């Protein structure tokens, strides 16, 4: 099933990229680029809609802000976010048998923290006049968070009372690396939409003294490496030229 969707995704991405190239060829004659100018033309500010939608659920609260600046085909990217989860650890739904005995447990896990990612995207639709993007990128992520777990394990022998623990890791810091890919499409004037798919790997944490860290804000479940992430994003692009022209206009009017 996953393979089918991956193939469909690949076809869509290629089609989207191809369509962008066709559009630009038909509608606007691309300007000949003689020299590559590494001068930023705008700042794009965006947010992740998936995090906002997920925040309606009690088990997750989060938001993310993304900023990118263009330098020819390269985009410098900074992302900053907040992530708080509350996860039930009950396993009473698992089916146990004599061949597969399951220790019964119930409890709850909470974490809360901020994360920061920075890196670069490379745009493969350089000739697109609207600066639409199909990109590949690299990120380095840093997270600082606190977490706690409270749980009860039922012992295998009825002679003993259940084991209960309430543990906290107060100040955990961690890092990871991401390979990203996605689309940024101009929808209307300065409004942009896009997605970023993330392949996260090499997670590491420090400062977790009481139990092994479980869920790192910005990364996810630490024991799952590589881990996947996905953002469906909405951006607003601030054009430097327009900003500068607007300032000049205002200054001439005041004179």
């Amino acid at each position, binding site marked *: 099933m996953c393979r089918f969707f*991956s193939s469909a*995704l690949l076809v869509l991405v290629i089609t989207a990229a191809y369509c962008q190239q066709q559009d630009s060829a038909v509608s606007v004659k691309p300007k000949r680029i003689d020299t590559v100018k590494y001068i930023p033309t705008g700042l794009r500010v965006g947010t992740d809609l998936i995090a906002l939608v997920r925040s309606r659920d009690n088990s997750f609260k989060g938001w993310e802000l993304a900023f990118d600046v263009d330098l020819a085909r390269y985009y410098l990217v900074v992302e900053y976010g907040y992530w708080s989860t509350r996860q039930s650890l009950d396993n009473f739904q698992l089916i146990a048998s004599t061949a597969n005995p399951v220790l019964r447990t119930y409890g709850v896990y909470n974490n809360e923290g901020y994360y920061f990612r920075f890196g670069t995207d490379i745009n493969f639709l350089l000739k697109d006049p609207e600066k639409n993007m199909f990109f590949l990128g690299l990120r380095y992520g840093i997270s600082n968070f606190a977490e706690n777990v409270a749980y009860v394990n039922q012992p*295998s022998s009825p002679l003993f009372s259940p084991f209960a623990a309430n543990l906290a890791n107060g100040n955990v810091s961690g890092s990871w690396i991401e390979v990203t890919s996605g689309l940024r499409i101009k929808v209307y004037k300065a409004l942009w*939409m896009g997605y970023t798919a993330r392949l996260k790997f090499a997670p590491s944490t420090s400062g977790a003294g009481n139990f092994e860290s479980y869920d790192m804000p910005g990364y996810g*479940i630490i024991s799952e490496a590589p881990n996947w992430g996905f953002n469906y994003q909405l951006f607003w692009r601030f054009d430097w030229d327009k900003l500068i022209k607007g300032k000049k206009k205002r200054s001439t009017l005041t004179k």
Partner: protein
Amino acid sequence: MKVAARFLLVLLVAVLSTSCFTQPDCVVTASMEIKIDFKQNKLNSRSNTRSVVDTFLRFQSIKISIAGKDSLFSLDTIPRSSLALPIDPNQSTMKYTFVRRGRQASSPLVTESITFTYSNETRIISAQCGAFVYFLNLNVTESSYGSQFKILNDRLLKNTTNVQILF
């Protein structure tokens, strides 16, 4: 129209991509039992060396108890090559007393004991599987078996032998 098409394209890709997220398997290896294997120890008279032999030891009876609790097991004439001794997860020390009659019906009753210490750590497997206490650093602090035992694995895990007692 163009705006709507672009919006739909991005949305479709987003929905398709999320379908690849799968739940991990629930594999829990945590155990609250010390698994003991009984092995026979034979002396080779020629080389004067002892070797471990895989064989069932048939005790006429064996009664295992722990301090302050009723007996854990009371077994009669059942061949036993191993035992799984439950531990108290809220303690860090357990003393087991074995009262057994040897291989013959006329054998006298023998009382033996062994005391284990252990520590624990918490691991969260997944939200679906839950959080578990894992016991580790298993050690024998007192025993009536002298040097006739061996710790094979100091972590209490499913399907793992922790201690070998030689007879």
